[in-house]
């Protein structure tokens, strides 16, 4: 089993294999995005309290979910790279950081735009908003560390340790609305109870979440491919590839 894992986990195989996946993932993402946006912005009814304004949920909530999910991917990939020295895992972690930072930023900005009309304020320092802002700083710190360290192996190790230290923030973000009094409301969907959102509004939200997931999968593979080329620039197969391109 490990042989299989090492064979397909090798940078070269990953590079060849991922090329096939990217267009498919991207295509599915596009279809889901069109379906989700139509469902969310056109078909879903307005909310009984917030009217049409609640529709920002279709960007805000999937972005916030992705910001947490990508961090977990980054930390897991970092740990895998640290323990088993899997080069592909290091490349995936490094490729994930800017995407995670973007989704975190998007969640914060859309939340702020949503907060002004509904709550009456752009920003408050409650536990949910503050912990999400810390997540953005963790991503930015990770990215800064990657650019600050020239040796890519060392950078990957340092980044993995930072990512693992920051993992503690993930449950804090998720449970902040339950552990403390916050201005941000409690979970609508990610709880043991039935979701507190009408099915006609829930379906487009889940489609959007799936679309964001496919977007991440497509772009992270694409980015990881470039990371691998850069990491392996002195290896025989990359030189061969360059030779082929030059003709």
């Amino acid at each position: 089993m490990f042989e299989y894992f090492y064979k397909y986990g090798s940078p070269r195989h990953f590079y060849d294999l991922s090329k096939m996946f990217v267009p498919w993932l991207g295509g599915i993402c596009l279809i889901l995005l069109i379906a989700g946006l139509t469902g969310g912005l056109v078909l879903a009814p307005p909310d009984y309290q917030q009217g049409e304004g609640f529709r920002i949920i279709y960007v805000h909530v999937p972005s916030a979910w992705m910001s947490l999910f990508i961090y977990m991917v980054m930390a897991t990939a970092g740990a895998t790279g640290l323990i088993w020295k899997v080069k592909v895992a290091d490349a995936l972690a490094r490729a994930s950081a800017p995407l995670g930072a973007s989704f975190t930023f998007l969640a914060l900005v859309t939340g702020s735009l949503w907060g002004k009309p509904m709550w009456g304020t752009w920003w408050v320092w409650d536990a949910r908003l503050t912990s999400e802002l810390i997540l953005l700083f963790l991503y930015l710190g990770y990215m800064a560390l990657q650019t600050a360290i020239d040796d890519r192996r060392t950078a990957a190790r340092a980044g993995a340790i930072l990512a693992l230290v920051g993992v503690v923030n993930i449950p804090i973000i998720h449970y902040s609305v339950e552990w403390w009094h916050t201005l941000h409301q409690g979970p609508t969907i990610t709880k043991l109870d039935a979701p507190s959102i009408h099915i006609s509004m829930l379906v487009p939200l889940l489609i959007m979440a799936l679309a964001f997931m496919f977007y991440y999968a497509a772009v992270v593979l694409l980015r990881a491919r470039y990371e691998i080329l850069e990491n392996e620039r002195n290896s025989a197969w990359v030189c061969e590839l360059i030779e082929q391109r030059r003709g």
Partner: protein
Amino acid sequence: MNPRRRKLMLSVTFIVLGMGVATALALKAFQQNLLYFYSPVQVAAGEAPTTRPFRIGGLVVAGSVKRDVESLAVRFVLTDTLREITVDYEGILPDLFREGQGIVANGRLRPDGTFEASEVLAKHDENYMPPEVADALTAAGVQLPYRAKNTAP
């Protein structure tokens, strides 16, 4: 698994668990400071500061909102269903402010036990539904949280 990997794996577990325990203890110590707002019960129990401003959160009691005809001054009663506190505020209220709605007010406690707010924020809940469903639920006698007639003029 070779000893080197086992050692690395232990270090990773140690980092994650260690950070978890350290953060849990730190958060436990700062529990009070992490509360974004106090509830009327906590204020009644004297847990809220009396010398500096703080935030108070609760539901606006239905029928308690009294607006001044000539100014933006408004007085309403806030409850957490156990205790009540009277809040005075002068200014523009958020759109979601209505009777039965959860709100958070920032201000200070007056010596007479009423609360003088300098800012009022609406706290909406996690329920989303089309207006027709909300109407049907109300018609069926289901008490919806924060579902009350808009009192805005």
